[in-house]
């Protein structure tokens, strides 16, 4: 069977002008904004040994990886579905000797094995920052500030940060609100889906108040404090209050204590980022643990943003003035115009048409005149 010309595999696409340019502009802006906070860029490869991509982060689940056998080494390679684990590897190996806290930034394409109906893209541009060596409250606040600033620089407005406590169920199930070991996963899944009926059917009614507590951070904290058995969380809740004090005036903050959506490896705190007019989440982050080659563990915290949804809503597109240079225009004139922020389109033959080539201006008597 022949493939129709131009057909791409499911979940992959070409970016054309002006979106291709918008994408690279947004990535650049985000990386620069992150870099200003002292996060130095690293650039891991697109593919590596499969073992290198799994097992870097503690309690990361088995991932769906796009794998292939390298004809040269005869070993299984995989395309990266996420850059965070690669940065973790760099921090644990080649940069293991550098002083902590280590601040690293990254940006580039990632490839997922499967697309879903809700997230049909398999290739995404991921950008982010990782702060390695601590997951203290001060580190959380710094990472959140950097993330919010990066989104603001990209043009996102109405930012909402949704905070979550990823290991809450395990913590409570092991202590104040015991659950049978074989039910912990099911209860966690139901809490993640905020499925009140499903939770009740598991006999975990004691956890129902956590579903009701989710919402704007102020009332959510009050509701959490009222839950019998949740006193063991006091330190966590104080940390949330400190975060609210630090960034509450810049963004809307919600607290969803039992959210697990994609927080496979996060430890005590996680967050998702949302923006006005963007239908899904545009970034996420949290604290996690890196496993070093010798088995020692190191705390870290970071965030990732996805550039593609921003491009899809039209961010990053800049209108340019495009001037047509008729045949015979001398090179210095063109150079002067470009230095003055013009885009120049030089005629290559008499038949070139300025309007058809998308020019907004035409050079007449050495002065750009609107078409």
């Amino acid at each position, binding site marked *: 069977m022949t493939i129709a010309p131009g057909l791409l595999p499911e979940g992959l696409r070409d970016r054309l002008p002006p979106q291709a340019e918008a994408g690279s502009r947004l990535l650049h802006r985000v990386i620069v904004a992150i870099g200003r906070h002292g996060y130095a860029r690293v650039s891991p490869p697109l593919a590596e040994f499969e073992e290198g991509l799994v097992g870097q982060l503690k309690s990361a689940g088995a991932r769906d990886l796009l794998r292939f056998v390298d004809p040269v080494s005869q070993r299984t390679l995989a395309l990266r579905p996420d850059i965070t684990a690669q940065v973790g590897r760099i921090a644990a190996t080649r940069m293991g000797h550098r002083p902590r806290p280590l601040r690293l930034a990254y940006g580039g394409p990632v490839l997922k094995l499967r697309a*879903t109906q*809700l997230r049909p893209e398999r290739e995404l541009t991921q950008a982010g920052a990782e702060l390695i060596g601590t997951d203290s409250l001060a580190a959380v606040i710094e990472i959140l500030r950097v993330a919010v600033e990066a989104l603001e620089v990209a043009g996102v407005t*109405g930012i*909402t940060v*949704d905070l979550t406590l990823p290991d809450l169920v395990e913590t409570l199930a092991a202590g104040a609100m015991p659950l049978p070991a074989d039910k912990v996963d099911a209860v966690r899944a139901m809490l993640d*889906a*905020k*499925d*009140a*009926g*499903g939770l*009740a*059917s598991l006999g975990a009614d004691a956890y129902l108040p956590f*579903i*009701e507590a*989710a*919402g*704007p951070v102020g009332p959510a904290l009050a509701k959490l404090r009222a839950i019998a058995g949740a006193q063991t969380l006091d330190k966590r809740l104080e940390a949330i209050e400190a975060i609210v004090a630090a960034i509450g005036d810049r963004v*809307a903050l*919600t607290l*969803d204590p039992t959210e697990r*959506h994609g927080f496979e490896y996060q430890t005590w705190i996680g967050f*998702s980022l*949302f*923006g*006005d007019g*963007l*239908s*899904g*989440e545009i970034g996420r982050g949290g604290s996690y643990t890196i496993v070093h080659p010798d088995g020692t563990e190191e705390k870290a915290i970071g965030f990732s943003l996805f550039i593609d949804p921003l491009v899809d809503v039209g961010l990053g597109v800049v209108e340019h003035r495009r001037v047509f240079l008729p045949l015979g225009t001398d090179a210095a004139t063109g150079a002067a115009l470009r230095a003055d922020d013009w885009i120049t389109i030089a005629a290559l033959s008499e038949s070139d048409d300025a309007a058809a080539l998308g020019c907004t201006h035409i050079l007449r008597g050495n002065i750009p005149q609107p078409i």
Partner: protein
Amino acid sequence: MTAQIIIAVPKGRILKEVLPLFAALGIVPEPAFGDEDSRLLRFATNRPDIGLIRVRAFDVATFVAHGAAQLGIVGSDVLMEFDYSELYAPVDLDIGHCRISVAEPVAMAAGDDPREWSHVRVATKYPNITRRHFEARGVQAECVKLNGAMEIAPVLGLSSRIVDLVSTGRTLKDNGLAEVETIAQVSSRLIVNRAAFKTRAAEIGPLVEGFRKAVEAKDAA
């Protein structure tokens, strides 16, 4: 934020049970909404900030998962079938009770022992639920997807068994079928789009709380 909150509601029998819940929240849909014959798909309410759409039950989940509607009312059967990650189901509305079950012809059921199954051929509207259910008990299920009138499939030899919603069991009986296994109890749930739940918490929070209160008040009565 000026955009309306859209609530997606399924067509059919559940509609009558939903209206009292809306009334308890002080939401009054325009008259055409309660009229099964109306061809309108989108309806206004007495609250300018809330609109309603009436679509098929499966589409309620799809509209809300994609954020095209922010809230919806749908049976837990649909949630189980789709397993969309972007849906929350914070309130069990305690209406639309039924169950999703396996059924087979009465004659077959008389001599059948479900413990001995290794492969079954099932006609159903719920291929995912069916496959998951049988896989979990070590049986391979071959599903024939139908969109309605499953009960006729065994008689005509399309499949030996069906998986479908059962409320009174009358339809099964009339078609010579017997219920042999219950997969899950079903009730209608209030569902919320995940991103809307976070970013429009000030508008959506009170609505969710209102539905929760309305259900509690009804159960207490």
